[in-house]
């Protein structure tokens, strides 16, 4: 017997046992089968015209001003229009065609979310002020995901009789006329308020992780105030901030909730995500290869953002250069003008950004909401959560799909992280690592579209319960579980991979060396040691499965018996007047699930083992 170099190249060890082989092959085959191949099938569809390989569909997109019109935009950012008996500033945005609109919206959201996120993070990381603990709790609120209904509240806030005008026009007289934010501008505002916490969390962690001695040295050499921030603090935190901003850009690109809520304004529909979505729900256009081509354009942009940020962050690893030991964070009492900025600008801005979640609760407990505030307290919507059969049904469905998906996710993350983390020399390791994180850059609507083409055309699945064109037998739950397990994999995978990285490999080697097989070493040493990462990651993935939107309102909305929660919410808010309140009640339910998960995570992680040993 001799060492097989070919085997070693692929598995990172010359004699892989069944556990190692399974750890590589199970996630690899699953991700290839349910992510890579479906996308390739869609790609093939987009490149075929009249039975030939052709770029016809891409030409049809980039040749049509409806889709691509970068030079002669129509519409205007803002105009003065009559509203009742007064004039209002109506914001809707320019129309550059679907593709450019999506990019412009995405970049605008990135910028706005970064400004909000960095400002809040800097204040929280560096200043100690009365009321800070309350602010810290308030900052949890925007993290709560409430699909559709938070956008409904944002839309109400920015109506001429909404909260914003009530404050700034009626009471503070800051505007000459009321403002009305709608169309693409409305989408930008709603998405910025929804996604800025991602930048906040990244920026906060980055500011906290900067070695204070680096800033102290700069001060010692004479740098102060904004100069210090511009030359030392910000550049060091930039990789983290940029990673958050990139994620926000991708999420904006794929978001469907904001365009659907704002679709009353025609321009809000002119976004890639909405176009693909509406081709899906309008039925006859299902299977339209032009939409497959559009989905590919969207996927390409998302992947470019994702790969660019990976490359950039990888290059800027110096942020981690001086680590070692704990240090006292640099927290200072704000000076007078700084306190004024915190209390008069930062905190009010925060209150505005958390209002959507508060508004969802108000909406869930009220009869109507036409003006500035909701009216008529009622418990009937909340009661419907427990009594109305169709509502109970969707809650059951979502819990079922998410629970099954989470088991698959745990298996996938454990195997993939173990294989990629412990056998780094394997040629398959970086492939596995990328495949496990890349779903975060794949828009949900692209997955829905790919699954549609894949399951309705490729032989083993065609005609089965996974085939959406097979209307009588199609079981949306199966497709949703597959989609959830792919889309929400990165959250758990990242958490578990971080856990595995913290456990020194010698702890497993010691067990194996003492006579344990690899399976025994895994179950008795590694898994108990990373249990908290595993639970934390699984919970995060679970709550995001529960609130998954794109696939839920497309493949998931084909048969109302099998609706997930989000499909029902979408139906409610686009349906008859008043049912938005019921959707809000579902939003409150989702918030409660998330709060429970956060509290559980906090309780569990209090008793943590610390790893001992020095190298």
């Amino acid at each position, binding site marked *: *017997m001799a*060492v097989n170099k070919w085997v070693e190249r692929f598995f990172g060890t*010359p*004699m892989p*046992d069944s556990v190692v082989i399974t750890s590589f092959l199970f996630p690899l085959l699953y991700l290839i089968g349910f992510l890579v191949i479906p996308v390739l099938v869609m790609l093939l569809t987009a490149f075929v015209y009249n039975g030939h390989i052709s770029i016809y569909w891409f030409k049809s997109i980039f040749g049509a001003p409806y889709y691509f019109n970068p030079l002669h935009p129509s519409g205007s950012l803002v105009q003065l229009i009559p509203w009742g008996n007064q004039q209002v500033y109506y914001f809707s945005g320019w129309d550059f065609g679907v593709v450019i609109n999506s990019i412009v919206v995405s970049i605008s959201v990135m910028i706005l979310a970064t400004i909000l996120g960095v400002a809040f993070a800097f204040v929280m990381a560096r200043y100690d002020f009365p009321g800070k603990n309350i602010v810290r709790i308030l900052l949890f609120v925007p993290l709560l995901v409430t699909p559709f209904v938070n956008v409904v509240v944002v839309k109400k806030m920015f109506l001429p009789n909404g909260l914003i005008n009530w404050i700034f026009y009626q009471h503070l007289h800051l505007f000459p006329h009321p403002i009305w934010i709608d169309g693409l501008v409305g989408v930008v505002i709603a998405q910025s308020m929804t996604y800025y916490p991602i930048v906040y969390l990244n920026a906060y962690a980055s500011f906290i992780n900067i070695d204070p001695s680096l800033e102290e040295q700069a001060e010692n050499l004479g740098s102060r105030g904004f100069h210090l921030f511009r030359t030392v603090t910000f550049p060091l935190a930039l990789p983290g901030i940029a990673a958050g901003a990139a994620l926000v850009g991708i999420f904006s690109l794929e978001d469907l909730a904001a365009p659907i809520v704002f679709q009353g304004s025609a321009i809000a529909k002119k976004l890639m995500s909405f176009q693909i979505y509406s081709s899906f729900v309008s039925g006859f256009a299902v299977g339209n290869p032009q939409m497959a081509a559009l989905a590919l354009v969207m996927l390409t942009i998302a992947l470019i953002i994702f790969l660019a940020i990976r490359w950039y962050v990888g290059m800027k690893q110096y942020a981690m250069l001086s680590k070692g030991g704990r240090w006292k964070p640099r927290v200072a009492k704000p000076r007078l003008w700084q306190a004024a900025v915190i209390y008069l600008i930062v905190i009010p801005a925060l209150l505005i950004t958390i209002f959507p979640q508060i508004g969802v609760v108000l909406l869930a407990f009220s009869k109507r909401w036409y003006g500035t505030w909701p009216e008529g307290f009622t418990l009937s919507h909340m009661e419907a959560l427990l009594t109305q059969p169709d509502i109970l049904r969707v809650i059951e469905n979502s819990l079922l799909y998410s629970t099954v998906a989470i088991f698959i996710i745990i298996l996938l993350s454990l195997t993939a992280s173990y294989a990629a983390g412990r056998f780094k*020399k394997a040629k398959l390791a970086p492939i596995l690592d990328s495949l496990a994180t890349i779903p975060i850059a794949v828009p949900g609507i692209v997955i829905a579209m790919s699954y549609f083409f894949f399951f309705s055309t490729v032989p083993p699945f065609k005609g089965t319960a996974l085939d959406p064109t097979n209307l009588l037998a199609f079981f949306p739950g199966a497709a949703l579980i597959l989609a959830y397990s792919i889309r929400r994999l990165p959250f758990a995978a990242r958490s578990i991979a971080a856990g595995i990285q913290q456990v*020194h490999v*010698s*702890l497993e*080697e*010691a*067990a*194996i*060396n*003492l*006579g*344990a*097989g690899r399976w*025994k070493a895994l179950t*008795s*040493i590694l898994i*108990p*040691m990373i249990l908290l990462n595993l639970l934390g990651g699984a919970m995060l993935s679970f709550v995001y499965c529960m609130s998954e939107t794109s696939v839920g309102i497309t493949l998931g909305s084909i048969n109302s018996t099998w609706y997930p929660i989000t499909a029902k919410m979408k139906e409610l808010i686009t349906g008859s007047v008043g049912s938005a309140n019921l959707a809000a009640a579902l939003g409150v339910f989702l918030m409660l699930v998330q709060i429970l998960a956060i509290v559980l995570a906090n309780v569990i992680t209090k008793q943590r*083992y*610390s*790893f*001992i*040993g*020095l*190298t």
Partner: protein
Amino acid sequence: MVEVKLQNIVKRFGDTVALKGISLDIKHGELFTLLGPSGCGKSTTLRIIAGLEYPDEGKLYFGDQDVTYLPSHQKGAVLVFQNYALWPHMTVFDNVAYGLKLRKVPKEEIKKKVEWALELIKLKGFEDRYPTQLSGGQQQRVAIARALVVEPKVLLLDEPLSNLDAKLRLEMRSEIRRIQRELGITVIYVTHDQEEAMAISDRIAVMNVGTVEQVGTPREIYEHPRTEFVASFMGKTNVIPAKVVERNGDRVTVEFEGFRLDGLHYTGKSDNVVIVIRPERIRLKPAENAVSLTGTVDLIEYYGFFIEVIGLFGDVRMIARTISDREVGNLKPTQPVTFYINRDDIIVLPKQQL
């Protein structure tokens, strides 16, 4: 307890060759040390013996049995890791009992054996503690107990003292020696510290960039280094490049910086040589069969229990070490000084490409 035999072990990591054909014979009951600078391949050798890596070429035998490709959990060569690798989620008892449970030893016997092992390492009564509640030295001893309790064919120690402070290091060193003697087991010990290696080992293999330079008892290695690398690695020593200018049988005359030393033993082919002189073998007073070199004093360093006189001979600095104040007398830097060295204490070795 077995003999461990390595035959032409080759190990590559990508394009780098970590081990270039290592052959070793380790006797049973012996404390054998792999000594060398970091990156010399000593830890890789140890991991191959433990079964945590597999060699690309060559054979590994325990006794007569070929165990080259036996997986680690069947090998019975138990490694004590440099970082101890104690499992933080298990108590001391569970850590030590782990290997016994895997071997399906009855519960009562496990208890007895763990007790025996903890007694051996003087940690009785610590059964219920968690590793984080132990000091570094105690963690180290638990790691040794965990390995010993399964009665390994051979015990492997990877830099076991490197994470301990100086005082504890000396204590653990003799502790390891005591346990090894008491149990009469084969121990393979890896370190980069030559002093530690000399103090603890029965035999030492000095390694350098993937090869074994010399195997021998500490005394053989110190007094009769076979290569320039071994000579210079074993403690502070004078290694001076020189040229053979005259040969007379196995006696030669060498020259450096205009100084000629005659009547030295050398049988090598190359005329490019180094002369190796241990500082403590240099006298400041005339002695029998000695060559003498006169230069100037560069520095005098006072260490307390010995004194070093650093002399300059042309551009060559040479250190003489003595425990005698009287020998040094009133010497001052820049004054002339004469070093006397017995010809038998001068080792001439071929110059090595290091």
